[in-house]
């Protein structure tokens, strides 16, 4: 199934506000599995209410401490639920507001599940977290720089082979860190975020 940007609903989730709502305003730090589980259920519920393909933005701006257990529940298990063919909705996840202290836990839990996540990291801009081959990372960076491109354009940028580039782009779409449009061009997820905020 292919989606153009117009059919994807950007959907931003402030993790700290969800935490407050889901865990009865008790916790200002995202630690422990039950907290992560509550977060995940809250996010899943909001995604379910949208009932459409959406970009789900996980906003860490207000999060001071994130531990591995909570990250496993709130990020990895959440993304894992929406990556398989039996996913309950078509969701693309983006993280933003990440500080350096959040990177380790998120990278670690993504690696456990062999997943990747587009993320906006303070002072580094958008980066690809988690697992990806060097070729996929190069293509992802090139797509980020162009925001939208056809495979031959990316191939030219990287001095690469068009067919191989197409395979890598499709791999990124399979990992849900890029979008394939109905006109056969590819789109960086971060560009959809900019459209939503304009």
């Amino acid at each position, binding site marked *: 199934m292919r989606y153009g940007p117009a059919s994807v609903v950007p959907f931003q989730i402030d993790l700290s506000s969800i935490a407050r709502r889901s865990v009865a305003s*008790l*916790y*200002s*730090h995202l*630690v*422990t*599995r*039950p*907290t992560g589980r509550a977060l995940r259920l809250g996010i899943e519920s909001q995604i379910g209410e949208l009932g459409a393909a959406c970009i789900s933005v996980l906003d860490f701006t207000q999060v*001071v*401490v*994130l*531990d*591995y*257990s909570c990250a*496993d*529940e709130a990020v*990895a*298990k959440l993304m894992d639920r929406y990556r398989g063919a039996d996913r309950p909705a078509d969701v693309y996840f983006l993280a933003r507001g990440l*500080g*350096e*202290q959040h990177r*380790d*836990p998120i990278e*670690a*839990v993504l690696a*456990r*599940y062999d997943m990747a996540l587009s993320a906006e990291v303070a002072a580094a801009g958008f980066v690809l977290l988690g697992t990806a081959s060097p070729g996929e990372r190069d293509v992802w960076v090139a797509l980020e720089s162009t925001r939208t491109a056809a495979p031959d354009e990316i191939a030219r940028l990287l001095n690469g082979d068009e067919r191989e580039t197409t395979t890598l782009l499709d791999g990124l779409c399979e990992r849900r860190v890029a979008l394939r449009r109905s006109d056969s061009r590819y789109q960086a997820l971060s560009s959809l975020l900019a459209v939503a905020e304009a």
Partner: protein
Amino acid sequence: MKVTTLPASLDERTFDAVARGLDGEPAERRLFDGSHVRWADPYGMIGLLAVGSVAGRESEQPILRLPEQPDVLSYMARMGFFEHAEAIFEIHGATRRSRHDGPSDVLLEITAINSHADVHSVVDLVNERGMSILTKQLNYPVREAFQFSVVLSEVCQNIIEHAETGGWVATQRYTWTKRLAGRKVVVIAVMDLGVGFRQSLSSTHAARHGDGGRFSDAAALEAAFLHGQTRFHDPGRGQGLQQIRKQVGRWNGRVSIRSGSARIADVPDWDDSLPLEEQLPFVPGSQIGIILPARVDEGGLTVPAHAAKGEVQ
């Protein structure tokens, strides 16, 4: 009555001597004589609570004779030791001060961990109190100081997730006078009297290897500590200890886990303990010790402890 004289220094290095107080007939009453204790750290104090709890399971409430040195008693009071000890020991000795009668320099008093809510309280408290200690006294960058809370959170959750019972945590900052050239360190101790690593992993191990009966404490510790094995069939589980090791390693710290009759540790170059010990006095549950040395500044560069010169043990 079996009498155990507590060592002058109550810490991880002397814990096995305290644990030997459990040797012998379980029904025999125990007396732990702390008259000559001159120093106690979080590991030593929580370890005493753990050993006392075990001693009281099958016999009359054990007796604790308190240290004679007033400053040791005062410090134990500030760490909240007596609030927990009174339920475990019949206490003999001088009156001790409450921990609430003055400003405290304690990073985290001895705190019972019985639920995830307790873990949140610990993280909140340490973030509130500990940031200036970690950044100004131990020279950790702010980002790494936050990771200290993560380590504490994961190690406390280990009690709830695996021990199937409650436990205690405490942490304090010290200046070592002899080891590490007088550098400041933070000591974390976390203990429980639960099922321990061997029992926690035995069903998984038996399913994999078919020899659950021969699964030793040391093998269980190696499986969990070195290989991240866990009883949960979930790819997200088992990473807490691995990440603690990774983080403590970055700080050139020491992390050890004692469970049953074995202890396993990541030993930095400034420490002389063994990476794996077996046939120790049996103590149920698990006892985790973490030591984090201050970063030192050499010629304007802040470097991890192991890169500094002038090591004196």
